[in-house]
């Protein structure tokens, strides 16, 4: 893939620049050339890239190089900080109306994922916030769009308000909000039809809906694979509707997702949620820092920088390796590793970060299930310190407690423990050398 070539080059450039105490103008020039390409490859809008590069140049020249880094890495550190600043902090709260119901309007281009996201958001509101939402089918244009939302409503056992395809979306929205008031729903989620931001007629329709129901939130749903046009899309939706936030979809894909940066840069509106899959519980809070790493596509370098910053040295990695060798790798270590990698964004990177795991055959094609990871995390977190370091003490009553504490079942706890033990065995073999030639690959607890 083209991108790998770039990332490699970026790494290569970093290596080339070594052994100086200060970052020189030449270092910055070499680095920013590569950074620019990396950002453009990630679909960050070229204007946004231009501004960023300018700021990075200004900031980086003349800086002292941090202990443990070389000047190239130091520049990347500046890049990372600039990206993080541009992305802003976490912000996944939804507005709440003074007087219920809170009205949320979902808008965006065709195929961005509005309908599925509406379902996910409803699910999130009920599950996490104990709310009682109602869904509204206001897409009267796309064939079977109403049907789609109604099916999701059935799956969620949640009411869907619709008036068929002959009704006017503005009227539908109005009637729905009235009904929600009467029947005491506290959230109304209006799924509108996808439309091009340049389609004046349909953009007017959205404005009319907005005027009619006075929404508390207007969420712009954007496909994370969007290219250079993301800025125009976000800008015109925002200009015409004054959106309150953004939901980025299809982030479970392998896109670098530069659109996120572009949208944030041109609208200043927070990205509130990240949609991570087709299932209705796959909606997460958006983590700007993970996104910044993902866009830059340099997990390794970034974690190295983090290491230098927090003064964590190679010792820890060595320790980990030793732990694997003598099989004293604990569930705690496991959790630690998982957390570390999760912060960096992509799940595949978990495998690359596990020392040695990248070398194992068959791992490339395995599937990682995000939800399983959540379970694993929850289970381990519900264990005491002693249990984490010595899982052999976990007896039946402890298992029951752990299952209860983590919202899982004893069977799930058992499975994790079994798989962890297998994994430890496997690691020992692997680190010990040749004999670990077992067929069938290994089963990580989160697969």
């Amino acid at each position, binding site marked *: 893939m083209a991108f790998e070539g770039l990332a490699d080059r970026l790494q290569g450039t970093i290596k080339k620049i070594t052994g100086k105490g200060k970052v020189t103008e030449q270092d910055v020039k070499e680095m920013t050339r590569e950074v620019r390409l990396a950002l453009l490859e*990630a*679909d960050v809008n070229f204007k946004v890239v231009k501004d960023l590069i300018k700021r990075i140049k200004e900031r980086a020249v003349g800086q002292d190089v941090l202990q443990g880094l070389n000047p190239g890495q130091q520049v990347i550190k500046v890049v990372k900080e600039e990206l993080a600043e541009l992305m802003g902090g976490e912000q996944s709260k939804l507005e709440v109306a003074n007087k219920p119901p809170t009205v949320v309007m979902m808008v965006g281009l065709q195929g961005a*994922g509005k309908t599925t996201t509406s379902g996910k958001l409803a699910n999130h509101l009920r599950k996490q916030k104990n709310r009682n939402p109602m869904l509204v089918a206001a897409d009267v244009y796309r064939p079977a769009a109403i049907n789609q939302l109604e099916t999701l409503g059935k799956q969620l056992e949640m009411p869907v308000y619709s008036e068929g395809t002959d009704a006017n979306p503005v009227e539908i929205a109005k009637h729905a909000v009235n009904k929600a008031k009467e029947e005491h729903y506290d959230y109304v989620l209006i799924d509108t039809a996808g439309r091009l931001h340049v389609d004046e007629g349909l953009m007017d329709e959205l404005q009319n809906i907005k005027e009619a129901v006075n929404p508390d939130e207007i969420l712009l749903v954007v496909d994370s694979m*969007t290219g*250079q046009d993301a800025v125009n899309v976000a800008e015109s939706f925002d200009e015409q509707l004054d959106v309150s936030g953004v939901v980025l979809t299809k982030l*479970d894909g392998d896109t670098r997702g530069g659109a996120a940066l572009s949208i944030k840069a041109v609208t200043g509106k927070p990205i509130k949620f990240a949609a991570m899959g087709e299932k209705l519980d796959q909606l997460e809070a958006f983590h700007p820092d993970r996104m910044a790493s993902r866009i830059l596509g340099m997990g390794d370098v970034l974690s190295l920088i983090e290491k230098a910053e927090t003064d964590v040295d190679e010792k820890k990695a060595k320790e980990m390796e030793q732990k694997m060798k003598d099989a004293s790798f604990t569930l705690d270590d496991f959790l630690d590793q998982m957390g570390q990698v999760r912060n960096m964004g992509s799940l595949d990177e978990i495998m690359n970060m596990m020392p040695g795991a990248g070398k194992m055959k068959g791992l490339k094609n395995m599937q990682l299930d995000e939800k399983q990871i959540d379970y694993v995390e929850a289970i381990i977190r519900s264990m005491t310190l002693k249990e984490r370091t010595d899982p052999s003490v976990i007896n039946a009553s402890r298992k029951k407690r752990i299952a209860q504490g983590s919202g899982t079942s004893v069977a799930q706890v058992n499975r994790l423990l079994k798989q962890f033990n297998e994994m430890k065995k496997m690691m020992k073999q692997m680190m010990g050398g040749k004999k670990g030639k077992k067929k069938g690959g290994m089963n990580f607890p989160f697969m």
Partner: protein
Amino acid sequence: MSFFKKLKDKISQQTDQVTDKFKDGMTKTRDSFTSKVNDLVARYRKVDEEFFEELEEILISADVGVVTVMTLIEELELEVKRRNIQDTEAVKEVISEKLVEIYYDGDEEEPEELQLNEDGLSVILTVGVNGVGKTTTIGKLAHRLKAEGKSVLLAAGDTFRAGAIDQLEVWGERAGVDVIKHSEGSDPAAVIYDGIQAAKSRGVDVLICDTAGRLQNKVNLMNELAKVKKVISREVDGAPHETLLVLDATTGQNALSQAKTFKEATDVSGIVLTKLDGTARGGIVLAIKNEMDIPVKFVGLGERMEDLQPFDAHQFVYGLFGDLTTEDTQEE
């Protein structure tokens, strides 16, 4: 004959109606692109480094892709030097020429038509990531093939997404063709199998199979697709005759990854580029054709049944450089 003249001639040979539709659909893309290039040319009298830098930005903003753009600019710089071009006006022609060249890369310069079985059943498989326009494209394509006098049947292979089967049925009704379906959640390969049997027994000309959208990094879902394809090849000789990858023109660089992975899993034979009626750029198809040699067969220019047009690189470039072309030919 100048390149623009040739381009113009090529296009006027086609029915005006088709070209106009294509042109109308691409108004947005063309407007922004053309005015940007015109503006650039107006501001720079001389072809210099800064000129190329800005040109690079214009191309990147059309989602042409970094690697392709860099190569293109390098070649342009060489060409400009070789022909000793000083004045920016003259560069416009070289730009168009290079863009078409990148697309065709020495291949036959004819629009790519669907490769269908002339006597007997043809099977078309449509694949792509979520929400790109697969189902809509199938509706449009069914309409198109029917208008050409072919009998068409659809198979509702998206058994996963809520409402997907109903959606295809609505399109079936609009186009006046039957839909073979199972219930939601059933095995897609089984639906397609039934579609093939029905198509055979009814003596239908073309069977078009819908599939669920899937992101290309989901290995199990890509395997499922490969399995569907296997069923098709097993049941009908030489099938699928076309495996069409549907790409959303608003997509950026990830379209390359989509093309690559879907090609590996299903041996994609052509691309349908949808949503070109937006300000969408779609420049990525240049890179895809160049790097992966998958031709674009159709473009989607709207949500109506008629909004599917055969792709023609000349028209595409004409769409991008429409005004430039007209100006130039008038001068001659």
